[in-house]
């Protein structure tokens, strides 16, 4: 309890202190960090979608530039974003189940189970999505 209060006082900077804090703490810190990344992307996504109002030529030019160049490096960031989303979703399901009183005493097992399932789904998603940028396997 004293330790928890100390962490509350330390605030966000405490997230980066992983030493001897275990899987649960890593999961917590990365959940919040990934949430911030997703929220930033969400507003970026709304901004890009706003360009639909500027018409077909403008919107398609933006889409082509981030898919085929000159800004195609954004596509790599897109795949990193997918990793963040799948991680956040899997850990989020575990947290939601905990909130409903399920799996309270099996944090670690549930964390790894959901993360493994999420990474398999991410692999499948990346495999199919990459087919359309001409990356063959």
């Amino acid at each position, binding site marked *: 309890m004293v330790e928890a209060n100390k962490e509350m006082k330390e605030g*966000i900077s405490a997230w980066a202190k992983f030493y001897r804090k275990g899987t649960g703490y890593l999961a917590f810190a990365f959940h919040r960090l990934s949430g911030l990344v997703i*929220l930033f992307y969400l507003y970026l996504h709304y901004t890009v979608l706003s360009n639909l109002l500027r018409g077909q030529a403008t919107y398609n030019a933006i889409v082509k530039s981030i898919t085929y160049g000159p800004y195609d490096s954004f596509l790599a960031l897109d795949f990193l974003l997918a990793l963040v989303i799948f991680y956040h979703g899997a850990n989020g399901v575990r947290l939601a189940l905990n909130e409903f009183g399920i799996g309270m005493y099996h944090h670690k097992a549930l964390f790894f189970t959901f993360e493994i399932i999420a990474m398999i789904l991410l692999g499948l998603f990346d495999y199919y999505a990459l087919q359309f940028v001409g990356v063959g396997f």
Partner: protein
Amino acid sequence: MVENEKMKYGSLNRFVQAVTGLFLIFFLGVHLYVAHIDFRHPVAFFSSVINQLHNPWWLAFFLIFVYIITYHGINGLNHIVADTSISERAKRDIGIALMVIYVITIIYGTILALLVARMTVPA
């Protein structure tokens, strides 16, 4: 008494965050499949988006999606703010500011989706 009310609100808030999160697994799953795999292109082109939003069911889907995902994101940010060491007054003010940002975002999202749904694909 005030502490009890705060705890009750905190529990409800976490519960709503969990429920919206579970909804998002479904919404985001459908969105990622449709936008990145079903359109057979890594990012959907103009005509694909417009044609999809011409369908009222898809329009409703995206509107609900925007309301839920924005709420979940903004509320999550509010949870992070609540865990910082800033004053209670600052936390309350930031909470109000985040609520205003949420309302502005969903109004903007609704107007954007409705305007896009009314657009036609040039021949």
